[in-house]
């Protein structure tokens, strides 16, 4: 099993080291985001179930009772963002795989890029309440704020992805035209 996986990686690496590295990095990113999503999915109901002990711990650190809802919302929002991150990396992984197969200009890649653009927008929209809530929690517990910050770079990324989706759609159309040309 491990031997065959090594052979697959070696073959990928010999074909195109850049794409092979991208696939490996994206595979790792997918695994990490899936793991984090699972952790947040487990943590959200766990905090609800153990609300009394969590509230006691929060009270020990000077947090009012309503902080538990802030903690739950931070965990739940983080889970949603990680899940979205998983789908983002999965789509990118599939695009890289299609480049490796020599067939990137297909309509499905245009749809993937568009989905990635919407994911990027969604992550930034969800990041606003997440940032505000974690900032509020940090103020209550007198901690330096180190949470998610709104960035224009993310929205620029979404814009680039939407434009790239158009480019791929046009590329797919041109390719289809060329394929029927003798």
């Amino acid at each position, binding site marked *: 099993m491990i031997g065959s996986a090594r052979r697959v990686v070696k073959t990928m690496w010999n074909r195109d080291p850049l794409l092979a590295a991208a696939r490996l990095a994206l595979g790792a990113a997918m695994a990490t985001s899936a793991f984090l999503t699972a952790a947040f999915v487990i943590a959200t109901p766990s905090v609800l179930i153990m609300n009394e002990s969590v509230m006691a711990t929060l009270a020990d650190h000077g947090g009012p009772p309503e902080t538990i809802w802030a903690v739950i919302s931070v965990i739940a929002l983080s889970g949603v963002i990680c899940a979205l991150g998983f789908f983002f990396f999965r789509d990118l992984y599939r695009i890289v795989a299609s480049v490796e197969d020599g067939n990137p200009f297909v309509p499905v890649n245009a749809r993937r890029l568009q989905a990635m653009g919407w994911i990027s927008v969604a992550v930034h929209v969800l990041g606003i309440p997440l940032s505000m809530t974690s900032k509020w929690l940090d103020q209550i517990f007198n901690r330096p704020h180190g949470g998610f910050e709104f960035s224009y770079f993310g929205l620029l990324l979404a814009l680039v992805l939407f434009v790239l989706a158009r480019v791929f759609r046009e590329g797919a159309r041109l390719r289809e035209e060329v394929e029927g*040309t*003798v």
Partner: protein
Amino acid sequence: MAILVKLDDLLHARRMTLTELAERVDITLANLSILKTGKAKAVRFSTLEAICRELDCQPGELLGYDPSAPQSED
């Protein structure tokens, strides 16, 4: 498609096979087959030129138009 490709008739008249023509015009048999069966969406002038050269014909002899046939989608 309303455009008719009369490659089969020309080949028959010249007693030439599609494989032979493919070798002479340096176009794959698969592509010539697409052209012959009327499945091609477009024909390059270079392809047309090579076929006309080898079959000693005019483009008009190779292509025809049938207004009663269903129109292509694009």
